[in-house]
């Protein structure tokens, strides 16, 4: 096959998979027209589900599979895709990096659209350096850490990182910007502008999010993403060459690749065009030893060579490839870091003492230690949540739990009959539950308590009871008692005051969310009483699940 054809096949594949990733990412929310069949409306407790969840990309990712397996001893649903990819990598090399990885494609586009360097400088920048070993260090640290019970893979796994960055930072940033523009237009007195705004918002919100999507620490997530993109100015595909732990894993597995670069020394005129165009700094030049673990199979060198000195061939005779150059220091360092980080991570006390009261996990979340072992912090649950209540943590779960999901009730609330987050979780850190299970068991995520000093009726500032009205359980967990409280000027004021029945409260937080006292509402939810934890209980019961 001609080099040009190979390069075009690669580009088409890259465009297809990037497009698919972006499409599925955008579709990872309830559509406006998620209509149920008429008969289903009347059947009991239907579970609304996404029709096209993006889980495929996570199932394809061997790092997610391996880290969940080593750390949480769980086989994630659909893991054979990852297994298949490893098999393919064994024979074909890092074809995922060159053809499929959406983050790799974005780096490829950025590197190509604005080349970091020119001519000879680029050739020199594309030489292999010791920095390439950093990714092996990171991989070994992640895997050893996973065995020790600390799973940080999702922080730098390319699929998790890309989904998190786009879904929680980039798309909402654009969406809120557009929404503000539409708001200005809608507030105008010119009717045509009003209608343009309604139409525009109807078109834009299914893509960028409804209302004003907001995620805690999103600015930081977005900033990191922009910095990673900027690194392409230093070296093309800096991330893929130097940092990506998935690339390192696939590099190791490409050891027996039968697809190899054949170099013809006699034809080479030493023009170095191959090195100048190499995306992986894999030493394609005749005279150097080709690094098959670094090669991302972009076929640029093959295409660039004017003399036909390079070609990719299947080598059926078992010809040993070069070993991935990991470096002893990277291996040892990775192991030391992998052993010490899990030990350090326990020092904030969350593993053995009572956790942060604000750490309210989504319904169906595994017990905390198991949860942290499999959660990839991809942000899919946060993107799917229709009320925007699921947010990334900063310090609530300790540093070991950075960017794992927790619920902020002032941002949203957990809708009583919604079970969407568990249905999209790629690793099962949040179990898939049914509405029936959520209501009947019940699955509690926390417990509400009334802050009487702030509560309008309790403090003698007037009637309210919004919390009781909205409490979704039957019978209501928030109930009212008639009371006479001292109002302004000591005048007795008859009011209904709210109480919380902890046995019934499931911690959904709609009371906190809709309380007229904003910011720090007069009724709040804390994690105590969550049914996933044996420790974090309030009442003496024998039915803790």
């Amino acid at each position, binding site marked *: 096959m001609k080099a040009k054809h190979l390069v075009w096949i690669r580009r088409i594949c890259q465009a297809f998979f990037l497009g698919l990733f972006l499409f599925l990412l955008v579709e990872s929310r*309830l*559509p*406006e*027209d*998620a*209509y*149920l*069949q*008429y008969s*289903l*409306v*009347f*059947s*009991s407790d*239907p579970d*609304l*589900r996404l*029709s096209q969840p993006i889980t495929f990309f996570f199932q394809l990712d061997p790092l997610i599979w391996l880290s969940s397996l080593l750390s949480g001893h769980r086989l994630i649903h659909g893991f054979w895709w990852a297994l298949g990819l490893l098999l393919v990598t064994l024979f074909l090399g890092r074809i995922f990096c060159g053809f499929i990885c959406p983050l790799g494609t974005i780096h490829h586009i950025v590197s190509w659209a604005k080349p970091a360097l020119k001519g000879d400088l680029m050739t020199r920048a594309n030489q292999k350096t010791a920095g390439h070993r950093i990714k092996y260090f990171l991989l070994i640290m992640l895997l050893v850490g996973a065995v020790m019970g600390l799973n940080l893979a999702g922080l730098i796994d390319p699929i998790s990182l890309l989904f998190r960055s786009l879904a929680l930072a980039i798309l909402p940033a654009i969406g809120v910007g557009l*929404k503000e523009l*539409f*708001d200005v*237009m*809608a*507030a105008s*007195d010119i*009717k*045509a502008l*009003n*209608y343009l*705004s*309604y*139409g525009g*918002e*109807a*078109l834009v919100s299914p893509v960028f999010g*409804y*209302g*004003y999507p907001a995620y805690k620490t999103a600015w930081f997530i977005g900033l990191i993403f922009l910095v990673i993109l900027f690194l392409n100015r230093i070296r093309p595909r800096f991330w893929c060459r130097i940092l990506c732990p998935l690339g390192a894993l696939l590099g190791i597995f490409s050891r027996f690749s039968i697809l190899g670069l054949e170099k013809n020394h006699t034809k080479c005129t030493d023009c170095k065009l191959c090195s100048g165009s190499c995306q992986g700094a894999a030493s394609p030049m005749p005279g150097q030893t080709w690094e098959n673990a670094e090669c991302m199979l972009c076929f640029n060198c093959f295409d660039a060579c004017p003399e036909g000195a390079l070609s990719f061939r299947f080598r059926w005779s078992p010809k040993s490839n070069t070993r991935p150059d990991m470096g002893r220091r990277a291996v040892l360092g990775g192991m030391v870091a992998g052993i010490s980080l899990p030990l350090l991570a326990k020092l904030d006390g969350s593993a053995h003492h009572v956790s942060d009261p604000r750490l309210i996990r989504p319904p169906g979340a595994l017990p905390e230690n198991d949860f942290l072992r499999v959660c990839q912090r991809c942000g899919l649950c946060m993107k799917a949540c*229709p*009320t925007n209540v699921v947010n990334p943590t900063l310090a609530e779960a300790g540093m070991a739990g950075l960017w794992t999901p927790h619920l902020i009730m002032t941002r949203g609330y957990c*809708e*009583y*009959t*919604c079970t969407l987050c568990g249905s999209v979780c790629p690793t099962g850190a949040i179990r898939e539950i049914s509405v029936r299970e959520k*209501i009947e068991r019940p699955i509690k995520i926390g417990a509400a308590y009334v802050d009487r000093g702030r509560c309008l009726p309790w403090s003698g500032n007037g*009637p*309210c*009871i*919004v919390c009781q*009205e*909205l*409490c*979704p*359980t*039957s*019978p*209501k967990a928030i109930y009212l008692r008639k009371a006479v409280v001292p109002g302004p000027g000591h005048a007795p004021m008859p009011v*209904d005051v709210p109480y919380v029945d902890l046995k019934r409260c499931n911690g959904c937080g709609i009371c906190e969310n*809709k309380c*007229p006292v904003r910011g720090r509402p007069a009724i709040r939810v804390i994690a105590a009483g969550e049914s996933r934890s044996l420790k974090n209980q309030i009442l003496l019961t024998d039915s803790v699940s």
Partner: protein
Amino acid sequence: MEPNHPITRRQSLKRIARISASLAGAALGVCPLLSQSSVRAATTGKRFLIEGIGSEKGYKVNELTGKVFEAAGGMGQFVSKGDVVVIKPNISWARRPELAATTNPEVLEAVIELCFDAGAKNVRIADHTIHDARRCFALTGAGIVAKRTGADLVFPRSSMMKRMKLHGHRLDVWPVFVPFVEADKVINLPIAKVHGLSTLTLGIKNWIGAVGGRRSALHQDIHQSIVDLARFFNPTVTLIDATRIMITNGPSGGSPSDVAVKNTLILSNDQVAADAKAAGLFDHDPGKIGFIRLGQKWGLGTYDSQKLIQQRVIL
């Protein structure tokens, strides 16, 4: 269970474009309605109150709806040819219809069909829901009704809540859900439920779902607030869905044991009379319910049954 996707993206985009265009066209001739105390002219003609009861087993809800409107002289009395009709059901909770937290979709569907039969150009379903609107549309059945009848389901966006002067006794300026002020005719289609603060939630209380802003603060003077809203929105006609009513644990419910089947529909062009009649289903004295008393006081209507033409339809 997979959600059904009968509407493709292309179709919904087309529909959006159509709505925007027709809204724009309709609005060009209409001057802004920003400072009226009521968005429509006061009800003319005799005040009537019609109660429809489905006593037979297996009666058809849509037939009962049709009969009730027939008794009032047909939908043509309320909807003229070419009208844009906006219906305000209560679809605030993402609950299945059986739990009686939301308006029965069969009644909604029947009313929409009657509107189209009467020559309505466009029928819109609008409610500023409490739960997530997408989930409410799907679970209450409003979504599939809209799809089957060709009515438009208006997604409650914050930019569609426009501050307007209500000239109320309690509420002066408040954000209002725009489709209601831009409609030619408005039909209020609440469900009858108990409520912790206002005793009952019927037609008048349903208007909380037609405004935006800090709605939870309205509870601090709920009776006067909702009467102000009802005066402002002044529907062409009110049909209270009491096919199933919520008798306890309202207004959210959540259990079939919170529900009583009454097979009743109450139609009136008098908001107070409709609510007073529905209060009877709960064995409440209308005169003791704040918003009904205030409604009569401020001239919204009457709960004195002597002043009404009353009719009863039994199927």
